[in-house]
């Protein structure tokens, strides 16, 4: 996460807000916290932020009202809604109010971090076509993967999986994030379907190569990085 990422967190649950602020600060972001909608609206008007993280249900002024007001005033700062309500119509209401992303509680911090980063980078138009980590290289146009001089024989899904992990290198990627972004389904699974795909990818990616790149973080997900 960029050193200079400025974040405004509107969340009425002060304990949750404190935990969240600490995690973001530990990752190098500057976090301001507002404990209710009215304070949040005021803070958003006063300060300059890269991303607003807004709880939908807050006293005095709901998250959707705050964002509607800000959008009405011409503020285009990216907004990510946090909500305990995850139904489709709740999400639609969030987007209709002017939100750019919607995350249902409870969420893995890794997912929130990935989405906030994506929103902050939204305006960077540079199209990435090459991804790289240590001796691993991915060409998104020719869909070729190499470790050093060796071409990796990946099928379409394995390539997409690796591309997603690589574009989030160094960050923890949860199983839900992979299902949502690689398979495009928000699914609840009871089995380790994703782990099986990861272990196959690891077999092609790390077997016979040094250093190992794809690691499992127990209880959290997976991370692609050279040193651990």
């Amino acid at each position, binding site marked *: 996460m960029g050193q200079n990422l400025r974040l405004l967190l509107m969340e009425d*649950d002060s*304990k*949750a807000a404190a*935990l*969240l602020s*600490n*995690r973001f600060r*530990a990752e190098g972001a500057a976090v301001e916290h507002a404990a209710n909608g009215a304070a949040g609206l005021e803070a958003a008007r006063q300060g300059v932020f890269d991303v607003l993280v807004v709880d939908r*249900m807050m006293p005095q002024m709901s998250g959707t009202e705050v964002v509607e007001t800000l959008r009405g005033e011409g503020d285009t700062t990216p907004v990510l809604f946090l909500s*305990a*309500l*995850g*139904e*489709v*119509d709740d999400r639609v209401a969030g987007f209709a109010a002017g939100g750019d992303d919607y995350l*249902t*509680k*409870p*969420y*893995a*911090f890794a997912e929130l971090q990935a989405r906030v980063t994506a929103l902050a980078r939204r305006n960077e138009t540079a199209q990435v076509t090459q991804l790289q980590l240590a001796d691993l290289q991915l060409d998104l146009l020719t869909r070729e993967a190499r470790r050093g001089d060796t071409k990796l024989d990946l099928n379409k*899904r394995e390539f997409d999986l690796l591309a997603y992990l690589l574009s989030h290198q160094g960050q923890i990627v949860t199983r839900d994030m992979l299902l949502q972004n690689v*398979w*495009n*389904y*928000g*699914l*609840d*699974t*009871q*089995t*380790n*379907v994703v782990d*099986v*795909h990861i272990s*196959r990818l690891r077999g092609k990616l790390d077997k016979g190569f040094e250093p190992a790149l794809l690691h499992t*973080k*127990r*209880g*959290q997900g997976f991370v692609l990085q050279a040193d651990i």
Partner: protein
Amino acid sequence: MRTLLRLAGFRAALAYTALLLLAMALVLGLLYGRLVESTRMAQDNLIWREAAALSLTHQRDGVRGLAQAIDTVGAQDSYRASYLRLSDGLGSFIAGNLKEFPKVNTTDADGWLNFTEGGAPVRARLLQLDNNLVLLVGQDIADGENLLAAFRQAFVLALIAMLLVGLGGGAFLARRGLKQVEAIGAALKPVMEGDLSTRLNLRRDGAEWQALAAQINAMLAQLETLMGATRQVSDNLAHDLRAPLTRLRARLEGLLADTGEAALAGALEDVDGLLKSFNALLALSRLDSGVTTLNAEAVDVAALLADMHDLFAPIFDDNDMTLGLACADAPRLSGDAALLAQALVNLLENALAHAAIKGSIVTLAAHEDNGCFVLSVADGGAGIAPDQHERAMARFVQLDESRSQSGSGLGLSLVAAICAHHGGALVLRDNAPGLKAELHLPIKS
């Protein structure tokens, strides 16, 4: 006509018409009987009077006088209303306007003869005047018979007219009733589609319909309140449980990041397991209560199945099983792709958990059947006894409780609720061996 006959209103009208027809036929029958009786009496009296007069003439003036009188009557009777024939004991003609003895059609029990003369019906009587004289006195009764025939015709026409009016009126009333019921059905359609704010408006119609509409409206209002309450409760529950779980998860994640303690990773996995059960239960109760409205889009079934096959084939492979895919050109289905995918995931994970027999094949398939689109997952495991199929779809039921399975017992009930949400049904079948779970989804949903 067959559909008309199924209508209660038409049947009632029909029964009422039949009763009225019966009563009317009875009245008309009695009337006709009396009419016949009095007509006959008038005709017979006329004949008796003529016979009495001629008999008197015979007594006073003898055979000659009688013959003369008969000829006089014949001469006067230009309309030939009377028929007379005087004959001797052997039947030879003496006088009258019937040269030959007529061919008698019927003879009544009380001695009346009926025959036809010159195309007209004639009623007559034979009188034995003395040993050698027989007098036939008859009367043309065409006028009376014509009158009776006219009455008969009128009565039959009246009955037919009444039958037609009864049928027509019944059909009209029944159709009107049907229209009302159809109007109510049409007005309630939005309710079926989830809009509980719909109300019936039958202000211009009969009191009984208004009463019914009022009842239905009261019921809808109650349903709307209940549904709102259910939604509120489930929203509150979601919020009140998710907020602390979010904190708990964040805390554990933070600690894990700081310390790297392995026990914390286990605790995180437990929290996620808890969340999955909670989400499944919440989704199920929302689907069941009808709070969730169907988020219908065109679903590419072939692509959906291919995606699920792609996702699950490796894990089946790791369990030494094979996941087959059998899907011909599938049409697009109107439905919620995410829910349908979740239903297939639950069925596939059931097959992994309960039918993990090495070397067996699990088939993911789709085909059209009788207006339904059928998505199925068929395994080669132990299956479920047919008498347990119903129970298997109930909530929190795990059939093989002896085995320690990690599932919540909500899997199949969630699949059933998703099918119902699409206007379809989950059907379990014996795959001999194994279980075949079919999602029957109406193509036009």
